[in-house]
C-alpha cells in the first residue's frame, strides 16, 4: 500500500485510491459535490482541489487523481485554497438558495460572492450539475433514464426531450443521492410523481395491507435478485410482520419440539 503524506501526516491507502480518500483517511476535510464512493470519479465540481508537492508540483482535483507512492499533498496550500474558494464563490453566486452550497462555502470561509449569476428562467435553482443522479441512474441502477441536456451554462439534467420517461423505474435513487435536494419526488395514491423529470410511474399495492409502496417498473430488480423476489411482493411493513411471524412460528415449533 502506497504511503501518502497529507499535510505532513503519513497515511497508507491501497494503490489506485483517489487522493481524496487519502486526505480523508488523514482526517482532513475537503468539500465535494460530485464525488461518491461506489461511483467512478467524475471530476466535475472541482471543489476538492489540493496541491501536490511531491513527486511533482500541481494543483489537482483529488477525487480523480490516483495516489502514488510517496506522494505529498498540501490541502491548505494557498493556490489550492484559492481554487476551492473561487469555485464555491461562483457556486454561491449561481445557487444562493442552496443550503448545501451556503454551508460548504461557509466552511471554506466564503460568506459572500462577487459573482451573482441568475439562472435561466425555469432552471432548477438547486441543481449544481454534479451529475450524481445521472451516474447513479446509469451506472448503478442501469436505467439511464436521465442525462445532461445542452452545454455550457445551458447545461441541465433531464429525460430525453424532457418528457415522460419510459426508462425511469421510479426508484428514486437520483433524489436520494442528490447533494442539494434538487429532485422532487412525491407519492400520490397509486402514482409516484417524479416532478423534476416530468415522469409518473405506477405504484404497486401490497397484497396484505393494500398500501401503495413500490414503483411497478421496479419488478426488473426482482429478476436481478431472484433470491429475495418472493418477499418483495409485500410492502416493507408487511414484510417485516411476515418475517417476524415466520420466526415466531419457527421458534414456537422448535419450543414445542424441545418441550418435554
Amino acid at each position, binding site marked *: 500500500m502506497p504511503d501518502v503524506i497529507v499535510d505532513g501526516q503519513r497515511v497508507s491507502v491501497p494503490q489506485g485510491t483517489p487522493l481524496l480518500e487519502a486526505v480523508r483517511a488523514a482526517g482532513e476535510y475537503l468539500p465535494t459535490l460530485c464525488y461518491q464512493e461506489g461511483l467512478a470519479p467524475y471530476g466535475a465540481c472541482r471543489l476538492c482541489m489540493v496541491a501536490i508537492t511531491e513527486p511533482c508540483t500541481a494543483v489537482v482535483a483529488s477525487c480523480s*487523481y490516483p495516489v502514488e507512492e510517496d506522494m505529498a499533498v498540501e490541502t491548505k496550500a494557498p493556490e489550492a485554497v484559492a*481554487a476551492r474558494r473561487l*469555485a464555491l464563490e461562483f*457556486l454561491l453566486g449561481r445557487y444562493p438558495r442552496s443550503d448545501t452550497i451556503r454551508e460548504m462555502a461557509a466552511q471554506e470561509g466564503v460568506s459572500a460572492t462577487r459573482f451573482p449569476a441568475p439562472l435561466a428562467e425555469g432552471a432548477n435553482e438547486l441543481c449544481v450539475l454534479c451529475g450524481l443522479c445521472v451516474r447513479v441512474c446509469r451506472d448503478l441502477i442501469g436505467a439511464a433514464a436521465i442525462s445532461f441536456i445542452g*452545454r455550457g*451554462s445551458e*447545461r441541465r439534467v433531464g429525460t430525453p426531450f424532457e418528457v415522460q420517461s419510459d426508462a425511469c423505474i421510479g426508484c428514486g435513487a437520483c433524489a436520494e443521492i442528490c447533494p442539494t435536494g434538487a429532485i422532487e419526488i412525491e407519492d400520490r395514491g397509486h402514482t409516484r410523481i417524479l416532478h423534476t423529470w416530468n415522469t409518473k410511474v405506477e405504484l404497486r399495492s401490497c397484497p396484505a395491507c393494500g398500501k401503495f409502496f413500490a414503483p411497478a417498473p421496479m419488478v426488473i430488480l426482482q429478476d436481478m435478485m431472484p433470491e429475495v423476489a418472493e418477499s418483495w411482493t409485500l410492502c416493507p411493513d408487511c414484510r417485516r410482520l411476515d418475517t417476524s411471524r415466520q420466526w415466531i412460528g419457527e421458534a414456537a415449533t422448535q419450543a414445542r419440539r424441545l418441550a418435554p
Partner: protein
Amino acid sequence: MKVRTRTDLDTLRAEGLSALYPSRARIAVGMATCGLATGAASVYQALRDEAEAQGLELDLVATGCLGYCQQEPLVDVRLPGQDRIVYARVTPHRARELIAALVRGKLPMEGALAVIPQEDAPPDRTRPTDLPLLPELPFYARQQKVILRNSGLIDPLRLEEYIARGGYQGLARALLTLSPQAVVDEVIASGLRGRGGGGFPTGRKWQICRDADGTPKYIVCNGDEGDPGAYMDRTVLESDPYSVIEGMVIGGYAIGAPEGYLYVRDEYPLAVERVTEAVTRAGEMGLLGGDILGSGFGFSLQIVRGAGAFVCGEETALLASIEGGLGEPRPKPPYPATSGLWGQPTVINNVKTWGSVSAILARGADWYAGIGVEGNTGTVVFSLVGKVANTGLVEVPLGLTLQEMIEGIGGGGLDGKAVKGVQTGGPSGGCLPARLFQLPIDYETLTEAGSIMGSGGMVVMDEETCMVDVARYFLTFTMDESCGKCTPCREGTRAMHDILTRIIEGKGTEVDLDLLEEIAVWVKTSSLCGLGQTAPNPVLTTLRYFRDEYTAHVAEGHCPAGVCRALIELRILPELCTGCGLCLRECPAGAITGEKKEPHVIDPQLCTRCRLCYDVCPVDAIEIVR
C-alpha cells in the same frame, strides 16, 4: 485488382505516373473547400465545356489545395514533357482563354504565378518559361512540405497518384521489413510529437500503448478540428486522405491494433466525402482489411462523423463520442494509451501526426529528425490568416521564428499596416506581441510565452485590431463551446466574457482587470480538460502584453484601435468628402445625409458604428474618433 505484393504497388505506381504525367495536356484545378469557396467549381466547368467545344483532348482533374489561399482559384497546366505552370485567381473567362491558348499550342503567361518543379518527373522535362519556381516565391521559400507533400499535386482520390508520389512505401517497409517494435522505435527516433498541439512524443505514446495490457487495442485519428480560422486538418483530409489512412495502418501494426476509427467533424462535408471514398477504395485494393500486402496483418477502418461539439476535439470526449456517449471529457489519468476506447489501450493522434507517420516510415527517421531543431523535429502546418498580406496554409520546419513566418512567408501586414501581434493556437492560444517575433516556433517557447502551438491556427493582428475585443471574441467561442461539465470552465468563461463585455462597452474599471486575472488563473489551473485549461490564454496574454490597451479602455474610455463601438464615433471630414453618396447608400442605419457632390454628415444618434462607411469610402474621408 488487389495489392498483394510490392510488385503490385509498382504496377500501380506506373499507372499513377502516367496519370500525373500523361502524354497529353493535364489541367488540374485546386478543388478543396478553399478553392471551391472562390469559384473553382465554375472554373472547372468552364474548362471542361470549352475543351469539349474546341475539341481539345486533355486530362482535367480536381486536385486538393496548394496552400496559397490568397491566390485561389489555382489552376495548373502541364504539357507533355514540361513542368506544371500554376495560374492564380482564375476566372471562368480566363479558363476559356486558357483552353483557346492550348488549342493554339501555346501557354499564356498572363496570370501565371510560378512553375511547379516536379521532383519525380520523367527526365525529359524542360523549363518552359522564365517564371519563378513555386518554391522561390516568398510565400513558399521557407516552407518545407512533409504533411502537405501531395496536397494540390495529386487527385486526392486516385490511389495510383498517391502511390506514384511515394505513397504506401512506408507501409510496405513497415509490414514487410520491420517488426512492430521496430516501427515504434522508428517513430521514437524521428522525434515526432503530437501535431494536435499537445506535443506529446508520438513514439512514446505508442510504446505505452503497445506495452499496455488488454486486447483489442484501437487506433484513432482525431479530425475534429474546430478552431476558428484553422483548416489544416480539413485540407489534409480533402487533399491527401491516403496519407492519413496509411499512417493509421502503420500505427495499427506498431501497437497491435486491428481496428481504427477516423473521427472527422461533420461540418467538413467534402473531407467526410473524400475520406469515405478513400477508405472504400483502399479496402477494395486490399490496403485495408485482412492480410495487407501479404503480411498477415489486417486492419479495418471506420469513419465516425462528429456532431458539432468543439470539446469533442479533446481526446477523452472524442472517445466518449465514438462510444455513443455524451461528448464530454473525463479526468486523466488514466490516459487513452492505457485505457481509451471502450476502456481498451488506444492510440489517438491528430490528422497531421498520422500524415507525418506515413512520410517517416517511407523516408526514415533520420531524414525526419534532420528537419527542424533538436527536441522539436519535423514540420508543422499553420493556417496563416488575419491581417497579413499572404494568407494560406503553410508548412514550415519547427524552429522557424515568428518573424520569418509573418514577415517572410506572410509578407507582413495587410495593406502595409504594422503588425501588432499574432494569436497562435486558436482560441486556446495566446496573443504574442510583435516584439516577441524573434521567438522560434516550437512547443516549449510558445508555452513559456503564454501561448500554445495548438493545432496550427495563426491569426495575425494589426494596429486596427483591439486586443480586448480579440480576447472577448475568443472567450465567446470557448464559452459557447464549454460542455459545462466542470465548474471553472462553465462559470469562469462566462464571467470573464461578461467582464470583457463590460470593458468593451466602456463600463469597466481597474478592479475588473484584477478580477479578470484572478478568474483566468483559476480556470486555467482548476479546469478538467484542455478546453478550460487553455481558454483563459487569450485573456492572460493580452493582459500581459497589451495591458495598456485594457487601461485605455477602463481608465480613459478610449479604444486605441478604434474598434469598440461604445468608445468611438465616426465623422465625415468635409474637406475630403466628395459627396459621392456611396456611404449614404451603404449605411444600414440611415444615419448619413447629404446632397450629391456636397459633404455628407453622420448623425451620431443613429449611427451604430458598424464602420461600413469607413470601409467603403473611396477617398478615406471618414474618420474614427477614438
